[in-house]
């Protein structure tokens, strides 16, 4: 490799490395702002903003979904397995919304309740055939039963 080319190679490496460090530091500084949502623990701890709209993300608590008979309003709780926050929403829920499923809701805090204006379902990275999902469910149920019997 000729000296001039070597010099240019070092320049290119320096450019990419320097830029990576700069962008890396910027992103670290912006950490909180890039997160799409607050977790229920953050909200319970009072780290979420008051009086402005923000997003909450977590799993829908099992058996917490209560639909109204009169209108489209629905009540449920979102948890990150440590803390949970009750959510109130009026509107149509996405296909993937169900208990135990991850959701992201946009809205405001009204006292302890989160009043959502939009609810989005979060999809997980698992792809399974329906039979496989059914088999796992049954296996889990059996394991749970066996655990209960042994106690």
């Amino acid at each position, binding site marked *: 490799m000729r000296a001039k080319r070597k010099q240019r190679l070092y320049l290119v490496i320096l450019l*990419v490395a320097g830029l990576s460090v700069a962008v890396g530091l910027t992103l670290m500084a912006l950490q909180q702002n890039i997160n799409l949502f607050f977790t229920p623990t953050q909200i319970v701890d009072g780290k979420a903003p008051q009086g402005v709209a923000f997003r909450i*993300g977590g799993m829908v608590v099992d058996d917490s979904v209560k639909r109204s008979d009169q209108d489209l309003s629905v009540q449920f709780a979102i948890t990150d397995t440590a803390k949970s926050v009750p959510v109130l929403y009026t509107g149509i829920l996405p296909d993937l919304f169900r208990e135990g499923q991850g959701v992201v809701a946009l809205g405001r805090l009204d006292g302890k309740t989160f009043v959502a204006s939009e609810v989005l379902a979060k999809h997980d990275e698992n*792809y399974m*055939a*329906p039979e496989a999902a059914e088999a796992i469910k049954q296996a889990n149920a059996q394991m749970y039963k066996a655990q209960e019997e042994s106690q």
Partner: protein
Amino acid sequence: MSSSSTLSLTDRFWRWFHGFGSPARFDRFAQKALPWFSWGAGILLLAGLIGGLFYAPADYQQGESFRIIYVHVPAAWMSLFTYVVMAMAGAVTLIWRMKLADAVARASAPLGASFTALALITGSLWGKPMWGTYWVWDGRLTSYLILLFLYLGYIALVNAIADRRTGSRAGAVLALVGVVNLPIIHFSVEWWNTLHQGATVTKFDAPSIDTRMLIPLLIMFFGYQLYYFAVMLLRVRNELLDTERRTQWVANLIMDEPARDKS
């Protein structure tokens, strides 16, 4: 103990490297390789689509809608792959001033932009019924949109500068700057909480996807890959014939063409 007559491995590499950069030699290679890539791409894409649409089982949660994965995910992977090729070609352009590398970068940009646009559009169409929205400004979607702008910016920049060599160098710098975005796109779903789900296949654990779903996905990916190489080679050939139109090898090629058709 190597004798003085045989070349060392590094010398041989550099000889190959500089030889490969010769437009005339590349043109002969591209002519021979094109039918393999084109037919391979056609066959694999057809096989992948049939496998994905008819043989893979429906997803336990998304039902049939998950099948958009066979267009969306390979397009997203290829958009990153193409960018890596473009940036490496940019580095070679800057360091060795190789015409072939510049032609590869210029030929790859519109392909990469198309892959990115395809992934954005299919993802958005899937997002509406599944997530409940076409678009959300989370880390993954935003950094991926920047990738599209990088491609479009590259295309605009190299074409806006009248002097070809200056344009190529400016484009190469932009392509290298954009490399920073690639790890951000990939790790965005781990570093921040996003609406987009985490990696299914490209993670260190075993892929969390049914094998019957995974096989057509991989076939589609290789199909996309061959398609990229086929179109890229075609575009590079075109580009080189145009920029080298005053050279002897292009003249020879044109003279040879009718003679070969008759035989």
